[in-house]
């Protein structure tokens, strides 16, 4: 056992990369849930984003265009969910699960000719001499653009939800859709837009896996990250900054268990591998004193004339 083998700076810097797909997917879902809609199709939207982004980046040679395409792909798929739940008033839990099934299958069909292809790489942002600041530089200023976009997105979502009229409307719709409707807000339209935003974010998160984190295309490559993103939203009790914290905790625990293994700590691996989930449950118990965080209309079906 040799704990000194773990380099704390690189260890912490690794959190950012591991957490980014989670952050995108979860922050998108957070907005969706704020409007009272529960979309369990995150995994499906992520993997569609992963292939749309991958294919576009390979064809155009531009990773950034790839990310844009991923956002579009995720949003388009989410429209299917929006149609089902907002227009056809279908159950959201079942529709979300169906969306995941559909997304996993459809992405595999789209990606048939991209197996074994290497995508163009997105360069890290060049901070010049700033990046040489000890500790801070290698931890914070050593990443690609999308990592910073993810952080910015969290701040933006927080600010919009808290300080703007849009945020107020979103929350109003999520808390009591009938009252919001009575006030003249177009509940269905607002929710549909939120769902598309969630889809776009999930798409970008998925593309981060296929274009940067891994990077390659294989079927089913999101391997459950979408589900963890869903868990994160609840874990964060719908608060953007807590979500950020949760994403690092989650990404960090996986890193930690791999690091401990590398350092030769003799703990049964399967128990280390389950630790992130167990710890999440424990943290959750402590956080659950915070009542009333959930949007009151979450998962309920809205119909104007009812």
């Amino acid at each position, binding site marked *: 056992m040799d704990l000194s083998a773990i*380099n704390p700076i690189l260890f912490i810097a690794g959190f950012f990369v591991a957490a980014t797909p989670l952050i995108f997917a979860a922050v998108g879902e957070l907005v969706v849930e704020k409007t009272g809609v529960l979309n369990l199709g995150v995994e499906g939207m992520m993997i569609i984003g992963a292939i749309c982004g991958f294919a576009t980046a390979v064809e155009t040679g531009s990773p950034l265009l790839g990310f844009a395409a991923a956002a579009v792909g995720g949003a388009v798929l989410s429209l299917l969910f929006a149609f089902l739940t907002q227009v056809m008033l279908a159950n959201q839990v079942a529709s979300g699960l169906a969306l995941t099934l559909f997304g996993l299958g459809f992405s595999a069909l789209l*990606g048939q000719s991209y197996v074994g292809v290497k995508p163009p790489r997105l360069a890290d942002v060049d901070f010049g001499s700033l990046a040489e600041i000890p500790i801070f530089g290698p931890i914070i200023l050593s990443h690609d653009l999308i990592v910073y976009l993810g952080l910015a997105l969290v701040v933006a979502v927080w600010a919009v939800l808290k300080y703007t009229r849009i945020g107020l409307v979103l929350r109003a719709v999520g808390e009591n859709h009938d009252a919001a409707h009575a006030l003249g807000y177009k509940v269905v339209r607002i929710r549909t837009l939120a769902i598309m935003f969630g889809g776009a974010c999930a798409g970008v998160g998925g593309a981060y896996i296929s274009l940067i984190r891994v*990077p390659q295309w294989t079927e089913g490559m999101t*391997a459950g990250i979408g589900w963890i993103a869903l868990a994160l939203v609840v874990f964060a009790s719908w608060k953007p900054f807590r979500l950020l914290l949760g994403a690092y905790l989650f990404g960090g625990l996986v890193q930690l268990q791999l690091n401990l293994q590398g350092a030769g700590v003799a703990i049964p691996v399967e128990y280390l591998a389950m630790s992130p989930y167990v710890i999440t449950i424990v943290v959750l118990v402590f956080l659950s004193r915070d009542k009333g965080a959930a949007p009151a209309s979450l998962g309920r079906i809205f119909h104007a004339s009812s």
Partner: protein
Amino acid sequence: MKFTKRQAAKLLASAAFAASFAAPAFAQDDKTKIGFVYVGPVGDGGWTYEHNKGRLAVEEHFGDSVETVFVESVAEGPDSERVMTQMALDGADLIFTTSFGYMDPTINVAAKFPNVKFEHATGYKRADNVSTYSARFYEGRAIQGHIAGKMTKSNTVGYIGSYPIPEVIRGINSAFIHARKSNPDVQFKIVWAYTWFDPAKEADAAKVLIEQGADVILQHTDSTAPQAAAQEAGNVVTFGQASDMSQYAPFPRVSSIIDDWAPYYIARVQAVKDGTWTSTDTWDGIGAGMVGIGEISDAVPAEVKAEALALKASLADGSYHAFTGPLNKQDGSEFLAAGATADDGTLAGMNFYVEGIEGEIPQ
């Protein structure tokens, strides 16, 4: 009354079963029909992808005289049993079941269809109409280990394992033995991912190993995630796994182990066509072409490359065995006396590290 009725129904059912199970096997046409059962999607870029390449090679080799069918992403257990039965009912003459977990289902189905031949990959149960086949990937690991020992400057080699099963442990031992031979100071850092398939986790594992000082990464998982992590780090050497991964050549990927099932599949189909098929236990390595060694790139110094190729040649012609004594187990007890080589039974069930590897196999 009830009792007799049920009994009658039971009798009827079993009679119908026996009759219709036996029938399709006789209904042979000129085309040889071959079924493949895959555990993953053909687009996994690794294990299943390579088996499917073998299937395509069969089609190409035999042209119109064969018909191949496959079902992908078949869960081990009852689903696989159903899929195999269905293929047999539909008149398959030969069925390849390409995952260890298909072992008992293959045996079960084979018992019901004595006229259909089965080939089960990586298992140990056989029957009159069930053969087993597997590849001596550890021979390829020996070559990787040799190159790894020579290429590492930090004397730390990282190894990403999937699950601690004999197949993986054998590979680690083989790589380690030969890394030590080429560099007595080398140490292995082993990280278990505890998943067959999670590219993001593989990327994490590779990064962790690199951060902890490994400058050579060996992987027993199939995604290119470790390759990309190494490329980003800049000075880390990797080897392709399952497929060539030549998109990362010449550096970081300096060589690779390629699963090449095509020669075996073609030979077995030919045997069925000729009527010479018998139940066998095949464990082929570099010599028979089942384990391919991807081109060793110019990033490897010429003399190391020459040594590696010599090692490959000696493994291929059988003049050298990758597990040749004197070798001790991790606890210091004797594993192989000087000059002795490990028998296949020991290798198949290998569940210990050889001397020198630090850490324990997770239990």
